[in-house]
């Protein structure tokens, strides 16, 4: 958060940059209440300072539950409520934890500070000097309500999560952020949405294979991860003076034997399995595992246990440091690409006394770094449960994010980090548009997202190789908070509509045949800001209704980008709005151009005028 919010255009005021208009217009999200269902929070973190905050909003109806390491004074004008859910949780999950809202795991503190952390000055916010900057949440003056439903090792229980959501509805939260994977068809989230609460969920970390996405109910916002324009270059100098640049979170510990300013012995091996490493003396040495990261954690543990000095690991893609800091415990762990690993190993083969030296990582930001990119780990669509609902909805920063962890700061990657970025932005939008429904706010976010970087180049996604990202990677695209504040048109949904599209009432697992199916419609008729047709066999027509929330007298023209193999026709091609006509319905006819059993192809429909472009992704599979 020392850079992710700048990357999204939400600059905090400083001596050299003014505050973003959105932050100013929303008074930094003040008085919006964000509920975090997670592992609790560390209230003493500077990210949760309540200095300068006004009274707790009078509509707040929550509690500050106490425990052995949490008193009523641990709630504040920032952390306004805190509950924990231990009933029914097996004893073993309390090991290393406490029966209180306190976060002994660190996950909940990290996510809460991403969504709504108070600003913390650069001198205090870094990982041993790496990624230093002004840390803050997306809605830095929003209030936090903490619902500890997940325990020491990050395990959560459906019974505790449901209790948290039920209480959050009662307490009066505006936004719920859940950085965990839970049941599809979540009735609790639907009830929250019916009460006007926006529910933000992670997409999961099981990418890059298709159909790995989770939390795909149409009423929630499902968030994929993207990278930001920041990297941590780390110079490796070989004994022949050749220099290779990798990525690491390696920092110099004063007076530590782990950091050697001198060269040390280098070993290169193609496999770092426990069997291969067993008995090898690595004391004081740098080990290179040229195995595409297959045994990274094994090797790191071996180096730590046996007094090694460093570990170099080859990877296809080195942008995501996949939480290496914890595994490496201060030793120099560096990721290099396969070509560079081969160069180092060639030097190792050729030299009679191979040596190497690793320098601490630097922090580099700016437009020389290709970003955003969808990382390998981010789960991909389509949804197995709801193939006619496009998921994910949106992508947000979730790679190498520095945020609070207990009393310090840690760099962590995951869709867990992406979801609270969206929750923070929703909090700001709620200030601007207090009467908008969760569906309208989701629409604003999806239709204004970026699908290109600042140069106009398509956003990329990482898998076994890089490719141009598609809606199964990032939904509408990378989140654009300032655009979402003024979307022009919105696609709204009455929550009662969600039940019309399912064979059985939400929450039931009864056999479909036992439910009334007369009102069942394909889910692609739901008025979502996307169209997904997984079984296009003959021409179909879907309808969408848009509400003008921009200039009263507006004219929008359709720009159609048809999915490959699909003829897409929009009628009418022009939408005219005035004071009497704020809502317009249009139709989209999708026709397969060939008879074949095809794969998914992607397109879009954009309604645009001089000021606005309101884009929805379109996905179809000819069958």
């Amino acid at each position, binding site marked *: 958060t020392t850079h992710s919010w700048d990357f999204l255009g939400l600059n905090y005021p400083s001596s050299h940059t003014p505050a973003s208009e959105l932050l100013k217009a929303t008074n930094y999200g003040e008085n919006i209440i964000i509920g975090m269902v997670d592992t609790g929070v560390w209230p003493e973190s500077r990210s949760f300072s309540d200095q300068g905050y006004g009274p707790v909003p009078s509509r707040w109806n929550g509690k500050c539950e106490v425990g052995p390491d949490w008193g009523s004074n641990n709630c504040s004008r920032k952390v306004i409520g805190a509950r924990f859910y231990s009933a*029914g949780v097996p004893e073993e999950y309390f090991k290393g934890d406490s029966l209180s809202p306190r976060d002994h795991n660190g996950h909940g503190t990290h996510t809460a500070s991403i969504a709504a952390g108070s600003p913390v000055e650069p001198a205090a916010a870094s990982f041993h000097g790496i990624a230093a900057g002004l840390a803050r949440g997306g809605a830095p003056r929003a209030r936090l309500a903490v619902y500890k439903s*997940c325990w020491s090792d990050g395990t959560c*229980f459906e019974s*505790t999560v*449901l*209790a948290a959501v039920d209480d959050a*509805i009662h307490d009066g939260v505006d936004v719920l952020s859940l950085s965990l994977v839970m049941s599809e068809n979540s009735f609790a989230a639907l009830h929250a949405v019916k009460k006007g609460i926006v529910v933000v969920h992670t997409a999961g970390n099981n990418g890059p294979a298709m159909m790995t996405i989770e939390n795909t109910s149409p009423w929630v916002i499902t968030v994929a991860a993207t990278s930001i324009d920041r990297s941590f270059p780390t110079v490796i100098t070989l004994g022949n003076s050749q220099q290779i640049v990798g990525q690491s979170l390696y920092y110099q510990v004063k007076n530590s034997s782990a950091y050697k300013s001198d060269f040390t012995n280098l070993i290169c091996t193609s496999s770092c399995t426990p069997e291969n490493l067993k008995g090898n003396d690595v004391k004081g040495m740098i080990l290179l595992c040229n195995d595409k990261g297959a045994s990274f954690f094994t090797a790191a543990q071996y180096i730590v246990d046996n007094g090694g000095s460093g570990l170099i690991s080859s990877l296809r893609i080195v942008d995501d440091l996949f939480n290496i800091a914890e595994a490496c415990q201060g030793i120099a762990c560096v990721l290099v690409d396969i070509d560079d690993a081969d160069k180092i190993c060639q030097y190792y083969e050729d030299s009679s006394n191979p040596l190497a030296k690793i320098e601490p990582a630097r922090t580099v930001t700016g437009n020389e770094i290709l970003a955003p990119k969808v990382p390998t780990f981010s789960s991909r669509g389509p949804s197995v449960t709801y193939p006619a609902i496009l998921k994910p909805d949106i992508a947000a920063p979730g790679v190498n994010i520095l945020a609070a962890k207990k009393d310090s700061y840690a760099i962590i990657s995951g*869709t867990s980090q992406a979801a609270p970025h969206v929750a923070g932005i929703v909090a700001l939008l709620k200030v601007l548009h207090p009467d908008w429904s969760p569906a309208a706010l989701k629409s604003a976010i999806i239709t204004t997202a970026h699908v290109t970087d600042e140069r106009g180049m398509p956003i990329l996604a990482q898998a076994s190789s890089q490719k141009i990202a598609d809606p199964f990677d990032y939904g509408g695209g990378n989140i654009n908070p300032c655009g979402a504040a003024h979307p022009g048109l919105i696609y709204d949904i009455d929550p009662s509509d969600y039940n019309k599209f399912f064979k059985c009432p939400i*929450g*039931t697992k009864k056999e479909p045949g036992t439910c009334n199916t007369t009102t069942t419609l394909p889910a692609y008729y739901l008025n979502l800001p996307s169209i997904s047709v997984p079984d296009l066999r003959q021409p179909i027509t879907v309808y969408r209704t848009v509400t003008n929330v921009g200039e009263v007298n507006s004219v929008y023209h359709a720009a159609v980008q048809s999915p490959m193999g699909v003829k897409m026709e929009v009628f009418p091609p022009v939408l005219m709005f005035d004071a009497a006509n704020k809502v317009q319905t249009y139709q989209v006819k999708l026709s397969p151009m060939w008879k074949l059993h095809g794969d998914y192809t992607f397109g879009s429909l954009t309604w645009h005028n001089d000021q606005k472009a309101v884009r929805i992704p379109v996905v179809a599979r000819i069958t």
Partner: protein
Amino acid sequence: GGGSRKIYIAYLGDVKHGHPDEVVASHHDMLTTLLQSKEDSSASMVYNYKHGFSGFAAMLTADQATRLAEFPGVISVEPSKTYKTT
């Protein structure tokens, strides 16, 4: 009733009663009918969901869960799942 017990979640849909206490009482009545004992009902209840939606989490055997699913007003009864942070 035999068999090992685990946490099941009974989902009853929208909150239909006026006060949360009434919702809780209706859950206990249902569980008491199932277990045929007020004491067993109190001992089995783990959570009452009473604000945003109606339901409860209770320690039940698989057989008890199957019977509970047939009660009027019960939409589903499913074992409580385990999740992980992401």
